[in-house]
């Protein structure tokens, strides 16, 4: 799976959780989930479950703590896919 595909898949997951007044176009690699995309912190848990399902990986609690931005999430996904 190339980088572009991964990024698009992640964006598709994230967009469901955006508040009504934040558009999909606002998502960039550097976006912080909570402070910039205004995603409810409770929904981060759901994003992680969706990522697990989509990429067939399992994230640990420590991974969740590190996942502040879209870029962080992509790095975690890459690391998990490599160690599979």
């Amino acid at each position, binding site marked *: 799976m190339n980088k572009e595909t991964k990024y698009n898949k992640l964006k598709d997951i994230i967009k*469901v*959780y955006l508040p*009504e007044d934040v558009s999909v176009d606002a998502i960039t690699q550097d976006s912080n989930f909570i402070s910039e995309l205004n995603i409810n912190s*409770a*929904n981060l*848990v*759901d994003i992680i*479950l969706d990522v697990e399902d989509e990429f067939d990986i399992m994230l640990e609690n420590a991974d969740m703590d590190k996942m502040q931005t879209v870029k962080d999430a992509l790095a975690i996904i890459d690391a998990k896919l490599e160690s599979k």
Partner: protein
Amino acid sequence: MRRRVVITGMGVCAPNAIGLDAFTLAMKSGKSGVRFQSELKALEFVCQIAGKPELTDELLARYFTPLQLRGLSATGIMYGVMAGIDAWKDAQLPIAEKDKPDWDSGILFGSGTLGVDKFHEAIHLVDEKKVRRLGSTTVIQTMASGVSAYLGGILGCGNQVTTNSSACTTGTEGVLMGYERIAYGNAERMLVGSCSDSGPYVWAGFDAMRILPRYYNDNPEVASRPMSASASGFVPGSGAGALVLESLQSAMARGARIYAEVLGGAINSGGQRGEGTMTAPNSEAVQRCISQAVQNSGIDNDAIDVINGHLTATAKDALEIRNWSTALKRSGIDFPYINSFKSLFGHCLSAAGSIECVAAVLQFKELQVFGNINCEDLDPEITKIINDERIPQKTISHQPEIIAKASFGFGDVNACAIFKRYKD
């Protein structure tokens, strides 16, 4: 000094209709919402029929965002949010702005047990040691106040937002609790209502108690038979009803349409003493509740011209009629008109009181008393007390002046609300 309180909006998600207009038609024409449930047959229930609102994805999408719908399986929240939003819109009240809650509007929305299907999913995941897979909404869908919490956020209410729970009394009790909050000046508007989940996990306990009808699985529409000699148990139901209660002052100031005035009422318990038990009513308590409701409303017994009973279609229906008759000191042809809407949609449990209050109040607007179905064979124990003309078998023309509505519940609890026709 109590302030006057009126009803300015209503909404309903009932087994026989969803939305106020469709529900009005269903109530007038005697349309049944009791249907065969293949799910109950598959699980080998004795009673395989129930009243369940017929939701579609398209309908849900009108009330919930795609995000709210993800993993939403608490049917009580679906019904409650639909009825609640409809009532709010019916009252032509605005949804609060983004950064400004409406401090004068509150919510009191009851439930019996909430989010049972969500709980069922969660229990399986927990037992499979997959707690981390539960997702973020298990708590909010299964907490008793989940329905008020969803509505509170959607509407932006900044006054009290809470949930009451008193078994099958819940909805009627909620009307009186919301009434008091406005009457004593603590809120201008209260969205009151109640909901009950659908499904086997809610209804199983009643099936196990052998208090549901057994012989109507092939003939569901005639199964719910309040006041009939052939009544053989209540048909389980589900759904939600909602009413916007408002101070008369607030309603007048914004020129709101008024369905009726809430005069007052009473709430009590028989203490599970005397003939009262966990599941059977103490008649003395029922009579006191009705008498106190009349006194609290500042009316005479004779002023009541229509009663909407609890009347679930068990052997206790005749006892309920006797209690009304004793409390109001009225019998025979002098007894008010009486109906039980459970004949049309079954016993909606914690939602029963609110759905039935909505239907009872609609009778003021329609200038009608909605008919009872399935009681062509009236229980002779009932006709010994009241004249059969007082139990309309079809919807009749009559301008109600004062309607008394009572609900009773497990735990030996009672509530009686008094509604009055509003005249400018």
